[in-house]
């Protein structure tokens, strides 16, 4: 019980990031590895915007010292902007290239962004002040951190909002149409490039929110912070059934919880938690290849 609670917040963060992977995969059929770095830029952007003094590339400059809400908005905007830019500069020229070219480009973009961040902000972890929220709550004998409640609530709310946008708005319909069949969508008068751009901006905003939550929860931000969560979110997206929004989110929760269960119940599990958690996922995928909530893909001939 306690382990499940311990894993839900980080699972929500994975889930949010997984939704970003999932929706871009849905539209473009490619994995945008750079979401891990957008996650990082969201967190680092908000941190830097809130400081009175910033160290950039070892040079000290005055920071804007924005209030917390504005700093968070800044992080979101930075993340979305980077998402928009990489789609525009790196992926759009490859629209008709083989999918492998895009994948390799995505890996390159991810490494480039990480290198840029290391250059700008250094390799060390930067402390993020953790919000003072008071003692943990006691719910049915289990200890629940207040920040975990907030993290999970934000993650669920943002995912629901995103799902609603996709489900009920005109742009959401356009995104779904593009995911279904790009050529048909274009024939129906949908500006496919604009739709893809929008998808990247929305997905990047999700990734940035996830990064913000992560840095607040664990009290740090760093150039390399996005790599592992990015990898795990990708796995969560596959686990939940890639292309499915609720599936991706649930996949994230399952991954977060299984890590904690592994750390707790397996001897020396804390050292091998990732191995065990990923092992569980392999078994689930073996039993359900389409993922937890995914639809079986029918290859039309």
């Amino acid at each position: 019980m306690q382990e499940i609670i311990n894993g839900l917040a980080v699972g929500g963060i994975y889930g949010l990031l997984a939704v970003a992977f999932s929706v871009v995969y849905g539209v473009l059929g490619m994995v945008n590895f750079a979401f891990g770095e957008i996650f990082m830029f969201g967190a680092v952007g908000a941190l830097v915007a809130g400081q009175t003094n910033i160290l950039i590339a070892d040079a000290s400059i005055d920071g804007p010292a924005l209030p917390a809400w504005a700093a968070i908005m800044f992080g979101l905007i930075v993340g979305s902007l980077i998402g928009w830019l990489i789609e525009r500069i790196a992926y759009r020229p490859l629209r008709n290239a083989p999918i492998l070219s895009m994948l390799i480009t995505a890996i390159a973009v991810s490494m480039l962004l990480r290198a840029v961040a290391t250059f700008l902000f250094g390799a060390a972890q930067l402390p993020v002040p953790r919000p003072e929220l008071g003692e943990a709550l006691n719910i049915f004998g289990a200890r629940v951190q207040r920040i975990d409640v907030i993290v999970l609530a934000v993650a669920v709310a943002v995912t629901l909002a995103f799902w609603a946008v996709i489900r009920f708005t005109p742009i959401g319909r356009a995104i779904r149409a593009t995911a279904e069949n790009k050529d048909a969508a274009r024939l129906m008068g949908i500006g496919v490039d604009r739709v893809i751009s929008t998808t990247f901006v929305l997905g990047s905003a999700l990734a940035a929110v996830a990064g913000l939550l992560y840095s607040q929860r664990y009290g740090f931000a760093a150039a390399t912070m996005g790599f592992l969560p990015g990898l795990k979110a990708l796995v969560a997206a596959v686990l939940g059934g890639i292309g499915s929004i609720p599936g991706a989110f649930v996949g994230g929760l399952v991954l977060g919880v299984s890590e904690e269960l592994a750390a707790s119940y397996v001897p020396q599990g804390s050292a091998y938690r990732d191995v065990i958690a990923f092992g569980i996922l392999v078994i689930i995928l073996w039993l359900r290849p389409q993922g937890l909530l995914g639809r079986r893909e029918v290859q039309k001939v």
Partner: protein
Amino acid sequence: MLSKRTAKLAVVTGVALLALSACSSGGSGGNGDGGGAEGAIPLGYTATLSGDFASYGLEMREGIDLAIEEINADGGVLDRDLTLEGVDDEGKPANGPVIAQEFCDNAEIPVVLGFSFSSVALSGLPIYTQCGLPIIASAVTSPELSGASDIFFRTVFTDAYQGAEAAKFISENRGVKKVAVLYQQDDYGKGVADAFTEGIEKAGGTVTSSQAYQLGTVNFASTVDTALKDDPDAVFIGGFYTEAGKIVNQVRDAGSDVPIFASDGAASPLFIELAGANAEGVEVYSAFSASDDSPEAAAFVEAFTKKYDKEPSSWAALAYDATYIAAQAMETAGSTDRAAVTKAIAATKGFPGVSGEISFDDQGNRVGNLTFQRIEDGAFVVIKE
């Protein structure tokens, strides 16, 4: 605590290297009038001075340069000046024997300092042993180097020695009986944790749980729950500040005010930044602390800060001590004969270094006291007990 994995900092530019070599040749070669008839004594120095892992080598070099400058200003050794013959090993074990041969062939060199990586030291060691050229290393901690050769000494404490000393401190000075151990899953964390566990058990205490974790772990909630389940008197962390900071935060989040101790990987100002208010009262150790107010350490910190405009690291301090031990050994031996110098180094007893008293055991390992520190008001305060 130095393994390849440790080194994550410092991208070193060619400019920095150039500046360093320029300043060292100016410092040692310039004042020839202090030396005697026979000219300067060249000390060998090899370490990794380029690439991602250069920071340790460069910091050691700063300590050595300062020591040589001071010794020469004070009349040199055997009325001769000291100079430094520095060679970059690039962190490659293959370069170890090549450099060893180079130093061995230069009959003028009485002693070699430095070494960033245990692997490089190990690869060159047979050649140094053959020509009887003594080494005083200051950053390599591998247990494989213990007693590996009669000519090998180190001013750095091994991980195992540090773990054992920490166990002694915690059980004797803090009266702790039951400890939960968390350690980083690598040579460093495991070396410290194993010796620590052994030390606690020898002192009659128990280790309630011992859990390893990977570098890069952030969520320790369940790991911490397991550690706290047996109601330990203390938690010991053998790892770097990045994870130690998160563990400390999450132990406090779990509502526990159990005392926390951590290894020298956490003895960094960055640890205090990451753990914030939760760092208060945490106790750590290291070989050297810039906030140590012993006369030797204080004088060193002042001179170092004046020369380099920054606080000295442990590596600078340990290399500085190694240089002084080499100088003292030559004075004691009365010559630069390698065998005589080796004998004098081995006989070093209670040398008052800036990192505390220095002696060597029969395996060439450093014996002495660690500097224990407690975090108070956001700063490391040296514990004197």
